[in-house]
């Protein structure tokens, strides 16, 4: 059997920096991924397969989750995903869901690392400071810009974070004319319009092709390699070292551990045969919910409640990106010919966001706000058509009325949208565990997700949405609306294996090594005690590069220094 120094479970944003750094540092790396190995030539813009039938995620009757919610009287409602269709999978393939992301990238800001000190406690929430600071992470954010490829342009604004380099290594991608309308509206309102950084290469670089402006970015795999997905950006390069093996279509179902070390990983191959691998160091990066599930399912006599759960912390403080979305319609009838032409420009990116209210003040208190990204409605035509099925009174339409409405929506108007990202308060009421009574197709207990959104998140989300709506109104949009709710976006999930200095209240140490288990690291978003008010992936990548350095330091018998930080 081939010997490995490092065995990594999962191959997405949290896994790939570790594979990249360790293989380049001379270590032998094995990546185990439950999904297939798809590359640029496999990806097309097929709405039926990708969006309507979700071919990149498992079929729910074979692999699912149990979802629990609180009803109004406080009792728990339980439903299986196979019954409800509630899909918490995001993308099972080499490179994980990073293949499907839109690539909106924002760094977390210094204040995100000390939420508790900066804003004090929130009742019913477990807000803490991170055990590391923005300055610890900054070099890794920069590394991601350079290695994964982030395009953008730094502009001055009230919440521009400190940077060690002057600007992005790549200029912004081609922009929509409507971005100019947005800038003008913001100028009138006194807001600072920010070019949104994107994990998209505007031209050929880093051994990958530039963006072809396919118009179908989010939810779709990239056929050029321009998108900074984990496979194209990092895993292919790790593989090229000759020291990184990637096994697709293998599902890791258990880790064996003695008192202080993981000794083996067990997986099923595509034919359902079980295999065992050994390695010196193990890294779990299967996305927050599945990483926690694996650690629970790895319980043994020495770790009866699951790995890393001696203090009952495993799976706790699951978080999502709070907020929601909104939209307004631009009607051709209100525009001149040039504006219509500009509005219908296709393929280019809007690339605009606002962070004006990253921290804001209300009733004499400082509140943590967030980020608003602006974009056009997703071009998926079937979903767009479905949005027109009901009239304003909620009646189902058909016949000529429906046809007229469709025609208008597609040919005489265009929807401009926004997404609000604010902190999801970590609480005792939102967590992951496993459900012994529901098994997947391999007979392994599935993850159970208990959902709870703190009212504070909705208050902040509504505040931000009102600001975004104001911009849309200023731009001349009509039918403006937003939906802010505690519904979790399954694709923006973190927590469950908090890092911290105190083993009583965390699962991982500041290096993201499991407390008490010397050779086990968790490098996906599970480590995050709070999520920042930005989408997570830049932080996941950056932290995984930091974890890679910590693993190399440990293998060389060195200290990283993070573990000397005092609990705050």
């Amino acid at each position, binding site marked *: 059997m081939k010997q490995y120094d490092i065995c990594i479970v999962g191959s997405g944003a949290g896994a790939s920096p570790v594979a990249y750094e360790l293989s380049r540092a001379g270590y032998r790396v094995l990546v185990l991924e439950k*999904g*297939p*190995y*798809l*590359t640029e*030539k*496999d*990806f*097309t*813009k*097929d*709405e*039926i*397969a*990708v969006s*309507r*039938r*979700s*071919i*990149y*995620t*498992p*079929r*729910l*009757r074979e692999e699912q989750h149990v979802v629990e919610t609180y009803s109004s009287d406080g009792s728990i409602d339980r439903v299986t995903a196979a019954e409800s*269709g509630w899909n918490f999978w995001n993308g*099972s393939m080499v490179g994980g869901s990073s293949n499907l992301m839109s690539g909106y990238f924002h760094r977390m800001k210094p204040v995100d690392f000390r939420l508790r000190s900066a804003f004090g406690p929130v009742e019913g929430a477990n807000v803490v400071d991170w055990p590391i600071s923005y300055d610890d992470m900054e070099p890794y954010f920069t590394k991601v810009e350079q290695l994964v490829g982030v395009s953008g342009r730094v502009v001055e604004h009230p919440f521009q974070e400190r940077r060690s380099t002057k600007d992005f290594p790549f200029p912004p991608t081609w922009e929509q004319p409507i971005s100019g309308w947005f800038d003008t509206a913001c100028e009138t309102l006194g807001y600072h319009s920010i070019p949104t950084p994107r994990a998209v290469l505007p031209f050929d670089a880093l051994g990958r092709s530039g963006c*072809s402006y*396919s*118009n*179908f970015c989010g939810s*779709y795999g990239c*056929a050029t390699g321009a998108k900074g997905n984990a496979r194209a950006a990092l895993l292919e390069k790790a593989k090229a070292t000759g020291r990184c093996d990637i096994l*697709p*279509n293998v599902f890791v179902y258990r880790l064996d551990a003695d008192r202080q070390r993981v000794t083996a990983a067990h997986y099923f191959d*595509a*034919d359902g045969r079980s295999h065992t691998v050994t390695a010196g160091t193990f890294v779990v990066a299967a996305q927050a919910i599945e990483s926690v599930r694996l650690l629970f399912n790895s319980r043994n006599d020495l770790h009866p409640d699951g790995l890393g759960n001696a203090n009952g912390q495993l799976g706790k403080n699951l978080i999502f990106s709070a907020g929601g979305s909104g939209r307004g319609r631009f009607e051709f009838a209100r525009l001149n010919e040039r504006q219509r032409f500009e509005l219908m420009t*296709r393929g280019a990116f809007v690339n605009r966001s606002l962070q004006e209210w990253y921290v804001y003040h209300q009733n004499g208190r400082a509140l943590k706000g967030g980020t608003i990204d602006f974009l056009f409605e997703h*071009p998926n*035509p*079937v979903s767009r*058509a*479905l949005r027109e*099925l009901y009239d304003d009174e909620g*009646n*189902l339409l*058909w*016949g*000529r009325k*429906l*046809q007229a409405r*469709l*025609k208008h929506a*597609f*040919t005489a108007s265009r929807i401009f949208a926004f997404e609000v990202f604010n902190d999801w308060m970590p609480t005792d009421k939102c967590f992951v565990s496993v459900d012994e009574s529901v098994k997947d197709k391999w007979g392994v207990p599935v993850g159970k997700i208990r959902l709870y959104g703190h009212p504070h998140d909705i208050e902040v989300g509504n505040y931000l949405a009102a600001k975004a709506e104001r911009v849309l109104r200023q731009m001349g949009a009509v039918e403006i609306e937003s939906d802010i709710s505690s519904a979790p976006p399954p694709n923006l999930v973190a927590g469950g294996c908090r890092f911290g200095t105190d083993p009583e209240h965390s699962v991982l140490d500041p290096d993201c090594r499991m407390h008490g288990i010397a050779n086990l690291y968790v490098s996906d978003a599970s480590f995050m005690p709070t999520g920042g008010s930005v989408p997570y992936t830049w932080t996941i990548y950056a932290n995984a590069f930091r974890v890679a350095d910590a693993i190399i330091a440990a293998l060389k018998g060195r200290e990283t220094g993070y573990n000397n930080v005092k609990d705050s």
Partner: protein
Amino acid sequence: MINRRTLLFGGAALLLLPAESGAEYARPVTMLNEPYQTIAAVQRDLFPGGSAPSPRLLKAIDYLGGVMRDPYVDEEDKRFLSNGARWLNLQAREDFGKAYYVLDSERRQQVLQKVSGLAWGDNWLWSILSYLFEALLSDPVYGANTHEAGWHWLQYEPGYPRPKAPLI
């Protein structure tokens, strides 16, 4: 997840699906068989021709046949499509003494109006329309949206690269 056909086009997945998933998605259905006879009539009533491409041109009923064989569509949803057609006919018989598809157009509209006010009916019509929209707007590799008629009607330009074969 990916299927055998993608394997032929360079994918490396090993998932095995029923043989028919590789065949043409919208191959002709036997029109006299239920639920197709009823659903074809409903499609015509929900989405009449005229300036828009007709369900017949779009091969919407053959496409629905593909949906009924599609391993990615839940069995429960397929059963609902069939049951809905049965319930619609029960309603038509109750109100007018005949199956839906033999009623005149005014009476068919009355039946549609009535069931759209019922929970199952609203859901069912929504499902029928959503698969009809798939026939209208999917890539013609699935066998519907003939000559890209749906795309032309809505001046829609697809994303590239387009699929060379159905992925399901």
